[in-house]
């Protein structure tokens, strides 16, 4: 099973501030995904990223969100101006064999 690490494990920020969440796969992958999970709720798809381009995004992924691979290995999710409702767990996932997605441990984002 492919390994994924995420940093930071917990991010506290003030409303309106920018945050960058990072995902580091242990080995090379082409497909990356971001999901979020509001406390006590289901996991929600945000965006899929293939070959350095967004291939699919949800309604949640508005203009305040962006993704990139700045150095060819890290995969980042940026929220430009955080809102209270952005507080959630954010999970990065990578695609292994057979279309299976493997999730990282997540970053807990708290917006005050």
């Amino acid at each position: 099973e492919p390994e994924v690490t995420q940093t930071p494990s917990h991010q506290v920020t003030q409303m309106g501030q920018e945050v960058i969440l990072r995902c580091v796969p242990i080995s090379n992958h082409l497909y990356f995904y971001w999901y979020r999970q509001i406390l006590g709720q289901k996991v929600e798809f945000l965006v899929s990223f293939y070959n350095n381009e967004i291939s699919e995004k949800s309604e949640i992924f508005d203009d305040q969100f962006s993704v990139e691979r700045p150095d060819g290995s890290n995969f980042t999710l940026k929220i430009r101006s955080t809102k209270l409702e952005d507080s959630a767990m954010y999970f990065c996932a990578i695609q292994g064999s057979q279309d299976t997605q493997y999730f990282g441990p997540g970053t807990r984002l708290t917006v005050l």
Partner: protein
Amino acid sequence: GESVGLHLPTLSVQEGDNSIINCAYSNSASDYFIWYKQESGKGPQFIIDIRSNMDKRQGQRVTVLLNKTVKHLSLQIAATQPGDSAVYFCAENFGLGKLIFGQGTTLQVKP
């Protein structure tokens, strides 16, 4: 619309018994389904998957059943152990890697 649901929010079983967790999906065109286990404070952990050209797939102590006629998916866990206590999610692949998750079922294993 996009909807994957679970029939029960909480399932409580005795250690050693078999557990069955159910899931209903709405998109009849979906061709790939996955079960994930999520322990408190952790990310979803892959358990088992199944494609629409199959109706049953077995893993270690787990079996997934797919009934395309009624758009129903189930996860069976044999000889449930305390370590199986977690929230279980079914997920449906909508294409281009977009997974749609159900609400989750909390499995509680009583010693």
